[in-house]
């Protein structure tokens, strides 16, 4: 978000053309003095710790191979030198041995890297834990790009797959480095600098280990493109008698570790209409998730709890079985099914964990009806406390940050934000103006606008392409199926229609994008206003809370 503000500050003098075809509200440009560029609180609903920027572990393996290959190359180079052949002759060798050539240039890379490293240390880069690796990355990427440039000369036989992968990875790293570098100015810990500069050299050699420990990755057992993970998933589905979803045909390689499915084919094809394992309420829920009818963290959680209460109400213990354990084993395949329909949201995960603790904490000697009553009560309480009351509390806290006359910019739609804003107007009687930024393909912002307008708030509706244009007016900011990208709303104009036919084109439609925690200044929760680093603490406290009660 800080980045955005900087861009806006620069772009003040250059109004970009707004994509105002969708803007439905009045365009009276109110000259409201934007707040001083001090970054105020931003309310977030979900913890930013969902996913961290990732590097696939294949990259790590590759680097190891590269390192080994480099060493071989160095040895060869030394041997060559001894026999009088100049290293530059390796260029001539290129057609014959493409991989070796790559290693050759890697040796050059290392040399250049060390030189750049020395230069950077002198520049007094804040040496956070990440930074040695960062500067390494940028140096790496810079020089790898050189290597890439060299290799773009036509080589007969084409490049190996490994080389192509390396190229792609280089580009990704460059982008990532740029992004992290942009976020750098926030926290500089210069005291660590000295230590780091000493640690630089050994760190270069042991690059793979650094990469492993410093960069967050999706754990190995969750990556969708690994054989072992796929097998595990299949096994789990089979044991629960849940049909597997059809995997997406063409995935973007960068995201191949995420589970992606073809949207067209419904999961319920394989499930018998009657007599299936899954309770009807859960089937409905799964359908509504996968169709997008229930979206939004709170909505999904409430719907989940509703379905679970139906399940519990319909449940009857079979003879000779223990209610807690049997119910728990019943619920397991349901969760697997829901996960297949749509990955669980954080709120759902918390709710399920809560429910499981409650079930396991049931007194086995309790008669069935009482046990069910108890469970239903605790579900009610959970929903009431964590959704309804929490929303009220957050709304009260957040309202204190909103001042009369504010212009607030929001992206997309979220039920919590909606409550906050509407309460601000209706309860605290504040006069605010809201700019709703919307984006394809779901256009969720329209829902937000509808709710706000119904509550009597002045709204402006813009597309995300016009954010720089609107930015000067804004005081506060809150920043949401590849085939969805195809439909542009104009029936005759669908350039992406046959995207699958083009071999080199893959569409990626990301539903969620995550702001790195370093860019978030504060999270307003029902407990208090906390910095992002305190989120795990809160969760831990809550868990203890639940276990105790």
């Amino acid at each position: 978000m800080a980045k955005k503000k900087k861009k806006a500050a620069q772009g003040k003098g250059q109004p970009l053309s707004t994509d105002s075809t969708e803007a439905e509200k009045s365009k009276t440009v109110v000259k409201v003095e934007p707040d001083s560029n001090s970054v105020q609180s931003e309310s977030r609903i979900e913890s930013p710790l969902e996913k961290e920027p990732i590097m696939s572990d294949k990259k790590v393996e590759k680097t190891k191979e590269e390192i080994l290959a480099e060493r071989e190359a160095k040895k060869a180079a030394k041997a060559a030198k001894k026999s009088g052949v100049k290293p530059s002759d390796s260029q001539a060798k290129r057609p014959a041995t493409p991989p070796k050539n790559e290693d050759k240039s890697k040796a050059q890379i290392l040399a250049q890297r060390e030189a750049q490293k020395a230069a950077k240390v002198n520049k007094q880069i804040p040496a956070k834990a990440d930074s040695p690796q960062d500067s390494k990355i940028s140096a790496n990427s810079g020089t790898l790009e050189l290597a890439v440039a060299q290799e773009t000369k036509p080589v007969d036989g084409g490049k190996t797959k490994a080389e192509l992968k390396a190229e792609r990875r280089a580009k990704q790293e460059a982008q990532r480095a740029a992004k992290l570098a942009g976020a750098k100015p926030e926290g500089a810990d210069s005291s660590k600098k000295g230590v780091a500069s000493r640690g630089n050299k050994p760190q270069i050699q042991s690059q793979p280990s650094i990469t492993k420990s410093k960069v967050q990755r999706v754990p190995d057992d969750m990556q969708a493109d690994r054989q072992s993970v796929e097998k595990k998933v299949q096994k789990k589905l089979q044991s629960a008698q849940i049909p597997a979803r059809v995997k997406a045909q063409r995935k973007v390689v960068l995201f191949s570790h995420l589970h992606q499915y073809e949207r067209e084919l419904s999961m319920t094809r394989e499930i018998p209409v009657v007599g299936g394992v899954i309770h009807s309420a859960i089937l409905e829920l799964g359908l509504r998730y996968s169709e997008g009818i229930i979206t939004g963290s709170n909505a999904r959680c409430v719907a989940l709890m509703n379905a679970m209460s139906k399940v519990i109400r319909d449940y009857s213990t079979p003879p000779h079985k223990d209610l807690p354990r049997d119910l728990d084993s019943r619920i397991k395949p349901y969760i697997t099914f829901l996960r297949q329909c749509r990955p669980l949201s954080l709120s759902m995960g918390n709710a399920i964990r809560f429910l499981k603790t409650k079930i396991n904490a049931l007194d086995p000697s309790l008669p069935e009806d009482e046990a069910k009553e108890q469970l239903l009560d605790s579900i009610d309480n959970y929903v009431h406390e964590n959704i309804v009351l929490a929303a009220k509390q957050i709304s009260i806290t957040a309202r204190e940050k909103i001042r009369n006359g504010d212009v607030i910019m929001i992206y997309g739609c979220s039920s919590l934000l909606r409550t906050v804003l509407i309460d601000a107007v209706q309860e605290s009687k504040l006069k605010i103006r809201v700019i709703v930024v919307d984006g394809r393909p779901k256009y969720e912002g329209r829902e937000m606008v509808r709710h706000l307008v119904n509550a009597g708030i002045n709204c402006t509706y813009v597309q995300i392409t016009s954010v720089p244009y609107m930015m000067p007016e804004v005081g506060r900011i809150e920043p949401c199926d590849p085939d969805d990208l195809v439909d542009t709303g104009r029936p005759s104009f669908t350039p992406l229609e046959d995207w699958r036919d083009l071999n080199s084109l893959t569409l990626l439609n990301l539903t969620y994008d995550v702001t790195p925690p370093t860019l978030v200044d504060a999270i307003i929760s029902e407990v208090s206003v906390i910095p992002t680093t305190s989120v795990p603490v809160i969760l831990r406290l809550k868990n203890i809370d639940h276990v105790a009660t």
Partner: protein
Amino acid sequence: MKTSGYVPEFQAVVLAGGKGSRFTDVTQNKAKCLLPVGNLPLLWYPLNMLQRNGFQEVIVVVSEACKSEVNGLAKRYGLDMKLDVVALSAQEDPGTAEALRLVHDRISSPRVIVLSGDLITDLKLHHLTDLHRAHRSALTALFAQNTLDHKTIPVPGPKSKPKKEKDFVGIDKGTNQLCYISSEADLDEFLSVRRSLLMEHPRLSVFTNLIDAHFYIFESWVLDFLAKDDISSIKGELVPHLVKKQHSKNPDQNQPKPEDDVSDLKNNPNKSLHADDPQDIFSYMCTDSMADKSQELSTWTDHTGDLKGAYRNRPLRVYAHVMDTGTCLRANNLYAYCELNRQISRWMNALAPHREPVHLHPNSKVEPRAQVGVECQIGEGSFVSNKTTLKNSILGVNCKVDEKVKLLNCIIMDNVHVKEGCQITGSLICDGVIVPERCEIKDCIVGKSYKFVVGGKHANETLGDDQNRMMEI
């Protein structure tokens, strides 16, 4: 196989008590649901479809006369399901709604699938159930593209103008909602659509080429409403009533919204709104307030252009699914019935993939020098002599075809004896007919006890025992 131990979500009711009033020549002596199609009774097909989708118990409503035969149907034809057969009393001519009322107390599940006993389809049920579940609709109906062109189908019997039985079906393609339905017979010159309907559904597609498959998924409270009402036809009255009520002002909409009280999960979430007016369908409706609440929190909507929430805050919704691939036919008139028989061997693959296609029943005897075409089907215990030619024909059970007989495009039911030298083309011969020697029959319907003249020639006639009973209703 109730592994889950829960009350099943769906129950199926097959309405097979129809008299086949549109082709009485054929249905006079044999109940419509037992008419053979490809040597299987017509009722077998909907039951088979239900079985393929997991149903093991089905309620079947039939007329008194064929109750016993239907009881043994499942076992006889290899369907592993339990049939709960309910008989309609023979006297009155009940409508479909009356049949439903009859089984109302056997319904215990929250949703009911009601289908007609003459529906032959390879529908994948999940299309309809997905729609129904996802949108919590009150009624989901199935429609199909009409692939039969009455003008081109040759049909035995006297040439008559095909009856006009079009339906005007208005579907909002964006939401799949069924907004308008009316049969041609009910309209005069104009089809009028209320402006308020168009305001809510600005893009309405009205079709006239769709078959109403008479396949409905109801919520059980609709049946509760039906029990108290005196509607007689599901398709003719109940469905249009529901469609109309979608857009009517729900009296509860003006009530103040209940407090954000989500602690209602404990109590029965499905409670009726109010029970004052038994005639008003809204008083029977079960609402799920938690589901409404989560819908309200959700950022999804099914339409754009106004300030109302998802589903325009309408609690009662009717959805329709149009089947565009696959087979879907109702055998309720002569055209459909004949066409079905002709095409059935081609469709069996899709309709019943696990069933062995039986062209020549193992218990039938076909002499080696009989020419029997590949599409022909010979029933159990039938005998085809030498020097015969059978093309594109279906021979029923226990039939006997003597020598020098030519059968072309025929549908021959059970216990028929075709004597020597006959030539039968494009005809339908009912049970128990004995066709004497050297007859030439072309495009006729031959009823049961017609007294033939030896060597008689007939074309485009209905030959029944009582010539006056040829009327098509």
